[in-house]
Structure formats: C-alpha cells, structure tokens
C-alpha cells in the first residue's frame, strides 16, 4: 500500500478555479475522507489523484514517486464510482476480471483471483449473473470487487454510497471500513455526508470552494474546527455562531459578549479589536437561570434521548441540545450558559479560528 502526498494542487476549468492550492498527505493504510458541499472541488481533487484530470499546477506523489502527469492506467490506483460504472454488457465475473485481463493475466489465474475477491465481498453466488439485475448493495460490492481484485496501491471512492438507500448505506459503511482494515489499504473517500465521513475516516479533509479548510481526525474536526466554514458545516445541528466585536490579549481567559464576560479557553495569540465570532456546539449550551444569555424558547425537535431546543436571543437563534426528559414550553424565557473549555473563537473577516488552549494537548475527555 502507499502514501499519497498532494502538494499545492491547483485546477482551473477555464475561468472557474475548482481546486485552490490543496495540500495534504494520506499515510500508508490510512482512510481519508474528502468532505465538503457539492461543487467544493473534492471530486476534482480525487479525479486528479486518479489521473482522470490533469492539475493546472502542483504535484501528486505516490510513495514518493511524482505521478502528477502520468496516465490513469499507469498509476496502479483503483477508483469506485458513484454510479458504480459496471459494464452492462458483461456479467459479474467478467466485470470483476476486467482489470486483470488488461494486465494479460491468464484465464485460470484470473478466475482464481475473481473468486477470491468475490469471497471477500460475499458475492460468490452472483458471479454468473448479469449486472443489470443486481440490487444496489450487490452492484456496490461488484464495483468494489473490480477495485480490490487487482490489489492496487490505493483505493479512491467517489461517493460510492450515494446511490444506495439509507438502510443499505448503514450496512455498507461498516462493510467498507472493515474491508479497508482487512486489506490495510490506503483509501481516499469522497463524500458530502458528514456522518459517513465521521463514521469511517481516520482523517477528514474538509473542502469548501476549492480550498482545503482543515485536515484532521474526525474528533478534531468536530471539537476544534479550524474555520467558520468547518464549524458551520460539521455537526447536526451545526455549531452556534455568535458574532461580537472585541479584541484579545494573549492569555486572555474571557471575552466581552454584550454586557457580560464569557469565560473561554486561554487565548494563545493576540487579536486587535475587530469583528469576531464565538462558536459553541449545541451540546455545550447549558440551561441555567443565572445564564449570561437570555432568550425565549422558539421550538423543540425531539430526537429520542436528546432534544434540540431553539432559543431566540439577542444574537439570533441558538440551538441547544438537552436531555429529552426536560420539558420546555414555547415562549418560555430561559437563561443559557456555555461550557468554557469547549468554545471556539473565529476571526470573522478571514474565517480562521483563533488559537486558544482548546488547540493544545490531546483529545478532550
């Protein structure tokens, strides 16, 4: 398996700048998700790694070897497409064996490896079926079979679960991750679904407008978003963002929000007086009568063990996660408080997160 190193990758289609100076590294055996809204450049990035698009600038290294301008066929990479791209004029066996045929592998050896791949994916009983009659999940497995049969350096997947129904998707998430672990493969996986990314990835690269906003573990992405976009994109409901004006000294432990001081993780850089944004996850909002923010309950969404309470405040609508045992009346006035050690602060102009004690040390307990 291989390490994939992307350096300052750029891609323009005419005047449209699809990918802007993307850089990240996928280590041996790592599962990296490229996550972002549609049109953010994640698929273009993947296609450049695959060799289906040539970058405008930048380099792609596979195990240290510069493959930037190599043809797709010369890269030894497997790609699973969103719509699976199973050849309708071939049956399952020939579909899976198709990449081997190209390498000039003899029929006996080819069949042995097709059967082996089919065993791993538990589709041995389907080998002689036509692909057009297969159910979504089985098509997905055949597409995976075609990818793994060649034992490539790495796997690329372009929203492979996008075409499946929810139930199948849940099952395939676990199956894909298990397959990845079993093969020890390096995998780059494109998705717009944060739940998929959170559930599967070792590391997530969040992209927006062609820019890689943050590359980190799912936990870091969630707890320590590097930018306003990541904070807003990740999490359901997303992070609450409260705009305020103020400055920060290095070491400051609080910010001035309206009339009150709000405790924050100690700042590790200074910030001149400017427009800032305070970010707080819904589960870090506490209901307390002595709260620093007051508001009116607008409505609740019941989610089983928890509920999402929307509160209209001076800073706009805030969403709080609360145990569903507690009941709220619409129109009720409540006080809100934030857990200080979890708060993020962003510079509104650049969208960048300001370094605080939050970014130090390992994962929070």
């Amino acid at each position, binding site marked *: 398996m291989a390490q994939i190193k992307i350096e300052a990758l750029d891609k323009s289609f005419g005047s449209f700048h699809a990918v802007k100076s993307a850089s990240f590294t996928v280590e041996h055996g790592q599962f990296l998700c490229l996550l972002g809204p549609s049109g953010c450049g994640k698929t273009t990035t993947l296609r450049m790694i*695959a*060799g*289906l698009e040539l970058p405008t600038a930048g380099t792609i290294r596979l195990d240290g070897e510069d493959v930037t301008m190599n*043809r*797709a*066929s010369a*890269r030894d*990479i*497997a*790609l699973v*497409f*969103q*719509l699976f*791209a199973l*050849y*309708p*004029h071939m049956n399952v066996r020939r579909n899976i064996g*198709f*990449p081997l045929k*190209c*390498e000039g592998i003899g029929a006996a050896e080819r069949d042995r490896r097709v059967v082996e791949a089919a065993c791993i994916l538990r589709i041995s009983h389907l080998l002689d079926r036509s692909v*057009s009659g297969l159910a979504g999940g089985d098509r997905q497995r055949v597409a995976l079979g*075609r990818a793994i049969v*060649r034992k490539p350096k790495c796997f690329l997947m372009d929203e492979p679960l996008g075409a499946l129904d929810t139930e199948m998707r849940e099952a395939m998430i676990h199956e894909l991750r298990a397959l990845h672990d079993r093969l020890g493969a390096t995998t780059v996986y494109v998705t717009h679904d944060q739940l998929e990314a959170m559930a599967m990835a070792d590391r997530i690269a969040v992209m927006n407008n062609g820019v890689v906003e943050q590359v980190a573990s799912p936990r870091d992405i969630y707890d320590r978003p590097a930018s306003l976009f990541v904070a807003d994109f990740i999490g359901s409901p997303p992070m609450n963002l409260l705009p305020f004006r103020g400055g920060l000294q290095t070491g400051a432990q609080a910010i001035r929000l309206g009339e009150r001081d709000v405790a924050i993780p100690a700042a590790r850089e200074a910030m001149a007086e400017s427009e800032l944004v305070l970010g707080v996850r819904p589960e870090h909002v506490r209901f307390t009568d002595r709260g620093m923010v007051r508001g009116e309950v607008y409505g609740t969404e019941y989610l089983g063990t928890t509920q999402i309470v929307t509160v209209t405040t001076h800073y706009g609508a805030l969403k709080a996660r609360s145990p569903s045992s507690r009941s709220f009346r619409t129109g009720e006035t409540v006080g809100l408080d934030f857990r200080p050690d979890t708060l993020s602060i962003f510079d509104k102009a650049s969208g960048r997160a300001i370094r605080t004690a939050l970014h130090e040390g390992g994962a929070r307990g």
Partner: protein
Amino acid sequence: MTSATTAHSVVEPSATTRRFAGSLVVLYAIITMIPLVWIMLTAFKSPDDAISYPPKVMFKPSLEGFCNLFTTRSRQTPEFIRSLGPPQGLCDSIARSRNMVVAGPSNYVPRFVNSLIIAFGSTVLAVALGTLSAYGFSRFRVPLKDDLLFFILSTRMMPPIAVAIPIYLMYRTVGLSDTRLGMILLYTSVNVSLAVWLLKGFIDEIPREYEEAAMIDGYTRFQAFVKVVLPQATTGIAATAIFCLIFAWNEYAFAVLLTSGNAQTAPPFIPIIIGEGGQDWPAVAAGTTLFLVPIVVFTVLLRKHLLRGITFGAVRK
C-alpha cells in the same frame, strides 16, 4: 360491458382505443404494402399478363421475368432453332417458345455486385468515421465544437443532387467517374453527417464513467473505447448503419450521372431493361424484387437493435 363499474387506468389506453389504433396500423401497413406486393406479383407474370387490362390479380405464374433479367437473348428463325439440340435448361426453353435463343448472361449480376460493394462499403466507412468523430465530439473539449457540428449538419441542408454538376466535373478531373471507389466516397460523404449526429446522441447517453473506469483499470483510451463504449453503442450503430445503407442502396440520381459501364449500380440498371418492343415489365419487377432482398435481410438481422435504436435514448439502464 361493465365499464361503469370497472375501475380502469387513466393512463393506459382502453381496449377499444387499442383495437382502433391496432386496426389503423394494420390498414396503413396494407396500403403501403400494395405497390410492393404488385411488384412481386408482376415479377412472376408473363409479359402479356403484366400489361393486360384490366390488370390481372390471378394469373399463371411464370419465371420468364427472372430469365429475361439474367440473360440476353437473340431472335432466330424457327428453322435455326429446330436445328439446335434440346434446350439448355428452363430459360432456354422459355426463350425458344418465343423464337429466341439465350445469347449470354445479362449485366444484372455485376450491377448487383456493384450495389453491394458500394452500399456496404460506404456504410461501413460512414459509420466508422461517424462513430469516431461522434465520440470525439462527445468526450473531448473540441474547439469550436458547436460550429463544427453545425457545419456538419449544414451539409444536409440542401438536396445532394444540387451539387451534382460540380461533383461530376470534379470526378471527371480526378478520375473517380464511374469507379466504385468514387461512389463509395460520395455516399460516405453524404452519410457521414447523419452518422455523426445520430451517433453523438447515442454516445452522449453512455456515461463517461465506463471509460474512466476502464482507463483506471489499466486500459488506454482507445482500448476503453473499443471494449466498453462500442459494445454499448451497438444499438445506435445498428440504427445508423441501416439508415446509411438504405440511402446508399437506393440512391439513383448520382448513380445515373456518375456511373455507366464499370461501376453502375442496380438502381439505374433495372429500369432500362429493354424487352422486345418495349419495357420488359416482368424482368424489371424481378430485378426490383431481388434488389429488396439484401435490405430486408440486413434489417431483419439488426431488428433487435433497430427497434430500440429508433426510439432514441434507450441506452441508459
């Protein structure tokens, strides 16, 4: 009968509508078949029956038309005919009953072969060129793509015969007059625009992912085209081939103008089969009947693809 109480679908046609539509189609089919059937009947008539008035629907079948189509004959005195040995085969005996002897084969077979070579040759060429350029237009960022496609289409905007004189002069100068190659090139150039447009539609419908998957699996683009795109475009290729073949097979005006002795095709040859004292209608009809056979065979062979191909865009899963 219980229509008032029976639930029926709003979108499905009712049984009455279906029967009515069915009989209309059958009626139309019968009307279009009449000239064809008449030609086939005429092919088996004797020359007298063929021109009798009122026209004969019932008649004694004869193979004289086919004999006259394939042979040339010369009139002889009865004494000379009597001096010959027994007749050589059926056609000879028919000829002798009319005081003639078979002098040799007619030009029908070589003309028919010319038609086969020219029509199939130009079809293969037009479809091959059309498939490649349709693929190029469909998959690559071709500069001025829309203008080029419009230009290709615009070659169909006038009747081809409008440029007959320039082509005639051109062909005479470059030595393509009355050659099979010349006719193949001419029909190809007329058909290739149709082929490009038809096939581009079909190839657009084939998702790019198929080739991309093949290229990632280690194939070159051309291999991917051959192994993945072509098999899925068969429907479109078959439909296009039939359209091209029918045009090249039936083309008359250019064939009259540009061919004579060497490369003449069957369409200009058939109507000039002269019998004694006028048109030999049974021979003309026999020539026409046989002329239909290759198209019918080709269409029947490809009918499975054709039916899906003409209702465009049926490629997607």
